[in-house]
């Protein structure tokens, strides 16, 4: 009772400032990326290990086991592999997000280019307004990639990755398509059969022909397939209907409609970027307020610029196309 009285006195001295809750749209965006991580972490595990992994000691044993297997493989294929990290940490390489440590804050972002250092540098610049210091990518020992400033000591369990190491770019691009509102699985309300067919075609397009597509589990409810989870262990894409579709008149959907029209013009990268910015601004979205982030990825082998729109923390607009 004395404790309650003490607290009441403190509240009377310093009343709590009110805080406006996050909007439903922001919560939905945050939830989407979080749940993708959550489901991926389950789906990417071999089924026999799902229970065992809850015990840290076994988790370490699993890592060591995997390391042994990959190191053995490394001896065989060393000469054929250009980037060393694929040999050491294939589980971390086969990921589609990256954890950026930016001035003490941690943010998990969807991979944009597949280069974790480049992706976190861009995020750093966006968050702080100043260029990123030298950054280093690590296998964080939890099946993921973390990027820290080079002058920071990594936590125990982190393994430094070679400079220039990239994630599996095919997987990164495939995940972007799975989550894309412009032409990907989020571009409409697709049933299981249609989504399976579209996903199979996309896998071929991204050079993942050996992968197969699995329909959503019975526990998923909802009429539309909204995303897919990549399982690099079994080379499968598990379709999901996480959380049900968003409202059709949401900003994200309205922007997607505009982006579809822009993509059809087949313009070079910079010209497309200008149009995309203006389309976002017309809808009241501000780049400075971090309501969207535009990422340009030059690809001079392409004839047109493609646009994808992903959500997760903010709206990511990824443009890939020729410089001229």
């Amino acid at each position, binding site marked *: 009772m004395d404790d309650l009285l003490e607290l009441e006195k403190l509240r009377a001295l310093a009343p709590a400032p009110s*805080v406006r809750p996050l909007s439903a749209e922001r919560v939905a965006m945050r939830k989407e990326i979080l*749940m993708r991580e959550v489901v991926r972490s389950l789906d990417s595990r071999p089924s026999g290990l799902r229970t065992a992994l809850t015990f840290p000691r076994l988790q370490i044993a699993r890592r060591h086991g995997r390391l042994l297997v990959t190191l053995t493989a490394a001896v065989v294929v060393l000469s054929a592999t250009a980037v060393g990290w694929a040999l050491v940490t294939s589980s971390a390489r086969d990921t589609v997000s990256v954890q950026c440590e930016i001035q003490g804050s941690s943010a998990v972002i969807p991979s944009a280019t597949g280069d974790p250092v480049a992706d976190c540098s861009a995020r750093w610049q966006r968050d702080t307004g100043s260029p990123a210091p030298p950054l280093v990518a690590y296998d964080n020992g939890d099946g993921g990639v973390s990027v820290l400033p080079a002058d920071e000591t990594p936590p125990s369990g982190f393994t430094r990755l070679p400079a220039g190491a990239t994630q599996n770019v095919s997987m990164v691009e495939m995940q972007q398509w799975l989550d894309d509102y412009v032409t990907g699985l989020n571009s409409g309300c697709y049933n299981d059969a249609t989504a399976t067919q579209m996903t199979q075609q996309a896998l071929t397009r991204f050079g993942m022909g050996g992968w197969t597509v699995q329909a959503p589990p019975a526990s998923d409810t909802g009429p539309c397939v909204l995303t897919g989870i990549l399982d690099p262990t079994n080379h499968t894409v598990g379709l999901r209907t996480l959380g049900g579709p968003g409202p059709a008149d949401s900003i994200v959907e309205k922007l997607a409609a505009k982006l579809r029209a822009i993509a059809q013009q087949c313009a070079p990268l910079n010209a497309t970027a200008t149009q995309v910015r203006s389309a976002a601004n017309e809808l009241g979205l501000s780049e400075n307020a971090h309501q969207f982030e535009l990422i340009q990825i030059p690809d001079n082998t392409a004839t047109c610029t493609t646009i994808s729109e992903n959500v997760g923390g903010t709206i990511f607009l990824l443009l890939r196309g020729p410089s001229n």
Partner: protein
Amino acid sequence: MGDGKEPADAELWERVVSGEPQAFERLFDRHTNTIFRFCVRRVGDRSAAEDLMSTTFLHAWRRRADMQCGAEGPVPWLYGIAANLVRRHLRGVDRRRAGMARVPVPRVEPDPSDEIADRLDGASRADRVGEALRSLPESDQELFVLCVWEELSYQQAAAALGIPVGTVRSRLSRARSRLRLALGEPGVESGDVPSESTSVRPRKEGWV
């Protein structure tokens, strides 16, 4: 849930530990804004708070096997994760602002109701309250926000921060003395305020 009754947090958490994403999604829906509000009140920046909230839940999922919650459910533990992340964030803010004699205090984004309250109450008192809070050691500020503004019980706050309940009690008592002194409340002399050296960590970890 056939009877339409919502499962308690503790029950949902048991399902989370067994690896059920849907249960985790429901906990996220329930407590997103609770953790977000705590982060805003600690860092004073909605954008940073949103990242911190999101990271809190991701850490919770990854470390779900480490947390066997009792009947109170996982919320105190979520606060604990958020408090750790906020501390790291604030240390980063400190580093960013290195060279300044004193770290400016993050201000909680005012809502219209705040502004009205300020006008009615007198801005000077609000300023003095803010100043007084900022004069507390960071660990006391953290505890103050958890217990006084977030309304956690002493036991919940102790569980969240991993400290004894007695420490919660003594720190809050010290906070009240300091606040009363700073606000010129009657009956408090400077000698009544316990010395910072008794249990407060050094300045180098950063004031908020």
